[in-house]
C-alpha cells in the first residue's frame, strides 16, 4: 500500500529545519516524501487543505499516565491515546505506575500492543526502574528494552536510594536509555498535600518545601556526573531545582528535564478554597517559581514541555483535600495552556513552543519523529494558533475531566493530527 497524502496551502513551522513559511508536504508510506513550496498533488493523493493553518511536527509527550491496567475507570490506553491526538500529540511515553506496575517484558508488550491497537497516538511504554516500583531491586532492564520500553522510571515516586540510583544510571547505559526521575525527598515531603508556604499555612494543609525536589535534583545530577548516565528530571517545579539544572548544564552533564504546562502558569493560590483540582505532585508553587521554570525553558535549561497527564475520576477528586489524589488531566489543554503561558505574553514564539513540544523531546531521547524532514515519520499536527476556545472538561476525549482550568479561555486549537500519515483526529473550526 502506498497511500499518498498532500497537505497544501499551510504555514509550515518546523524548528528542526529552521522552517517557518508557506510550504506543502507530500506523504508516502507513512513518511514525509517531500516538503517545499508549490508541490503538485501526486496522483490519487488524499488532499488536505491547510490554508490558514500551521503545519508542524506532531507533539511528543515524554510523561503521561494512562491507568491501564488497574485504573481503567480513569483512563485506558485507548482513551489516553485518543486524548493525546486530540491534544496534537503523535507520540506519548506512558509511565509504568499502573496496578500492577509495568515491570516485566510481558507487561511492556501489553502496553505496546494496546497502544498500537488503539489507533491514536503512538504509545511508548516506560518500564519500571525497580521491581514493583518498590525502590529495592532493579528490573530486568535489558529485557524491558527488548520488549519495547523506551526508558525506565519509578515515577509516581522517586528512586530514593542513592546507591540504587547510581546503579540505574550506570546500568541503563548499556541500552542507551534515560532514567526518568520524579525528584522528591520523601522525608521532606512527608504527608504533604501542597506547596509549603503562606497559602498552606492559612489553609492548615501540610506543605512540601521546594527543597524536597531540589535536593534530589542536586543528588541525581551528581550521580549523573559520576556515572555519565542520562538523567531526565521529570516535572520541574521549584526555582531551586532550576539552579541545580543550570549548574548541571554549565558542567555539560547528561541531564535533561521537563516542565508541565500547569507549572508554567498556575500557582498555589489556586488551592485556596480546598480546590482538589489544583492538587498535583509536584505541587503548584509560587509566582517566583513559575517565573523561574518559565525562564529556564526559554533559556534551554529545561529542555521540554511534558504534560504529566494524570487522569482521575471525578468522584475521587470530590472529597477532603487530604484524601483526594494528586494529578491534572493535561493532554488536551497542553498546547492552549502553553500558548497562554509562553507565546501570548511573548516569552516564546510559536516556533519555539513547537520546538519544546516536539523537536526537543525527539532530540533528547533520540527519536526519529519531531521533524518534517524527508524520510521522517509523517507525524503531523495542524494548528489554528489564533483560534481561542473555552476549556470544557465534559468535552474531553479523555475518560476523566480533572482540571483546575475549566472555563478558561485558551488561545490555539488543534485542528488535525496525523500519525504515520493517517488522520487520527480532526476538528472543525470553532468546534
Amino acid at each position: 500500500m502506498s497511500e499518498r497524502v498532500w497537505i497544501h496551502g499551510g504555514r509550515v513551522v518546523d524548528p528542526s529545519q529552521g522552517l517557518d513559511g508557506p510550504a506543502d508536504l507530500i506523504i508516502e508510506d507513512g513518511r514525509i516524501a517531500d516538503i517545499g513550496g508549490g508541490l503538485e498533488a501526486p496522483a490519487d493523493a488524499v488532499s488536505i487543505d491547510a490554508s490558514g493553518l500551521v503545519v508542524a511536527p506532531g507533539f511528543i509527550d515524554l510523561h503521561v499516565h494512562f491507568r491501564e491496567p488497574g485504573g481503567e475507570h480513569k483512563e485506558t490506553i485507548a482513551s489516553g491515546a485518543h486524548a493525546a491526538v486530540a491534544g496534537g500529540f503523535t507520540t506519548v511515553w506512558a509511565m509504568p505506575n499502573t496496578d500492577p506496575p509495568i515491570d516485566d517484558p510481558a507487561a511492556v508488550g501489553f502496553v505496546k500492543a494496546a497502544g498500537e491497537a488503539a489507533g491514536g497516538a503512538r504509545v511508548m511504554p516506560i518500564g519500571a526502574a525497580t521491581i514493583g516500583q518498590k525502590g529495592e531491586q532493579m528490573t530486568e532492564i535489558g529485557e524491558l528494552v527488548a520488549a519495547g520500553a523506551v526508558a525506565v522510571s519509578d515515577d509516581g515516586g522517586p528512586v530514593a536510594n542513592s546507591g540504587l540510583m547510581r546503579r540505574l544510571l550506570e546500568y541503563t547505559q548499556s541500552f542507551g536509555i534515560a532514567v526518568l526521575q520524579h525528584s522528591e525527598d520523601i522525608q521532606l515531603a512527608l504527608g504533604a498535600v501542597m506547596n509549603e508556604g503562606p497559602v498552606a499555612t492559612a489553609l492548615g494543609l501540610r506543605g512540601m518545601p521546594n527543597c524536597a525536589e531540589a535536593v534530589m535534583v542536586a543528588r541525581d545530577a551528581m550521580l549523573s556526573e559520576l556515572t555519565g548516565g542520562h538523567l531526565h528530571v521529570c516535572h520541574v517545579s521549584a526555582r531551586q531545582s532550576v539552579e541545580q539544572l543550570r549548574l548541571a548544564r554549565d558542567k555539560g552533564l547528561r541531564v535533561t528535564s521537563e516542565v508541565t504546562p500547569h507549572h508554567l502558569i498556575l500557582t498555589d493560590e489556586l488551592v485556596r478554597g480546598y480546590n482538589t483540582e489544583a492538587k498535583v505532585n509536584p505541587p503548584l508553587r509560587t509566582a517566583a517559581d513559575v517565573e523561574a521554570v518559565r525562564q529556564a525553558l526559554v533559556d534551554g535549561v529545561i529542555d521540554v514541555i511534558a504534560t504529566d497527564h494524570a487522569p482521575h475520576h471525578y468522584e475521587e477528586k470530590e472529597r477532603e483535600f487530604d484524601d483526594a489524589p494528586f494529578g491534572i488531566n493535561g493532554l488536551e489543554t497542553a498546547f492552549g495552556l502553553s500558548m497562554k503561558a509562553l507565546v501570548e505574553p511573548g516569552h516564546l514564539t510559536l516556533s519555539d513552543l513547537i520546538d519544546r513540544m516536539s523537536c526537543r523531546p525527539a532530540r533528547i531521547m533520540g527519536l526519529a519523529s519531531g521533524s518534517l524532514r524527508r524520510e521522517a515519520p509523517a507525524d503531523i499536527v495542524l494548528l489554528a494558533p489564533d483560534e481561542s476556545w473555552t476549556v470544557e472538561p465534559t468535552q474531553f476525549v479523555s475518560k476523566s475531566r480533572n482540571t483546575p482550568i475549566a472555563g478558561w479561555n485558551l488561545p490555539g486549537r488543534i485542528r488535525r493530527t496525523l500519525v504515520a500519515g493517517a488522520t487520527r483526529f480532526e476538528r472543525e473550526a470553532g468546534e
Partner: protein
Amino acid sequence: MREAGVPGLGKDLIGLEGLAGETIRAILDTAEPFKEISERQIKKVPVLRGKTIVNLFFEPSTRTRISFEFAEKRLGADTVNISSSGSSVVKGETLVDTARNLEAMRIDMVVIRHGSSGAAKFLADRIPSNVINGGDGRHEHPTQALLDMLTLRDRLGRIDGLRVCIVGDIVHSRVARSNIFGLQAMGAEVAVCGPRSLIPLGIEALGVSVFPHIEDAIEWADALNVLRLQLERMDAGFVPSLREYNRVFGVSNARLARAPRETVVLHPGPMNRGVEIDSDVADGPQSVILPQVTNGVAVRMAVLYLLAGGRPELAEDAKRGSS
C-alpha cells in the same frame, strides 16, 4: 438560603479568616445575654425550638461536643449526635455521601468536627443547612477562638490593642489559626512562641511575630494562649521530649512572676499539666481556663442563634421573653 442576622456572617461559620471585626464583635455581644442564662435554674430559651441539629464528630472531642450540645439544648433545639473515630460515619461512606444524606434528612444545622482541613467548607458547599465548623484538621476552630476572645474581653475589658501570644504547637493547631485571624480583626497584636519546628515557616506573612524564647513572650504579652502539646509530636520528631519542652517552653509561675504586668493565661484544653502549663498556673489567679469553658457554651449559643436568623439586638429580648 437563610440569611444570618449579622452583616458579614453568611450561611455558615467555617472560620474567622476574612470576618470583619464588627461581625466578630456582634457575635461576642450576642453571647453576653446568653451567658446569664447558664446561671439560671432553668437554663432554656426556646429560640431554636423545632430546629434539628446534627453534631457530626469524625474525631473524638468530648469537650467541644458537649459544649455544643449544651448550647443547642439550652436553645430548645432537637439534637442528634453522630460520632465516629474512623474516617466515615457509616463505614465506607464518603463525606460527599454523608452530605447527601444530611440534605435528604432536611437537617437545619450541622456542627462538624473533622480531621481534614477544609472538611467543614466541603460540607457547607454541598448542603443548604447552616454548617458550623467545630474544628477541621489544622485549619480553623472558630468557636474556640470566639470564646477565647470573649474571655479576654471579660477579663481585660477590651481586645483592641491587646498583645496576645499563642504558645506551643502552632503548626498543627486550628486554634492558633482562628485566634490569629480573629484577634487581628479585633485590633489585637498577635505573636507566637514555641520551638521553631512547631511554627510554620513564613507565618510572619500572616502579620504575626515570632518569639523563640518564652521569657521574651511573657515580657511582651498581655495574655498567653497556651496550646496543648500532642504527645504524638514527640514521636514524629518535632520535639525531643516532653520534659525538655516543659523546661524550655513551659508556662510556670516562676516565669510569669517576671512579667511586667499581670499576664492572663488561657488554655483551650485538655491540658497536659506539667508539660505546656504547670498546675500552679492552671489553677492560679491568672488563669481564665474555667471561664473559657463557661463562655464556650454562651458563644456557641450565640453562633447557633445568629446563623438561624436571630438578630443580635433581639437576643436580650429572647432571653427575657422566655423567663
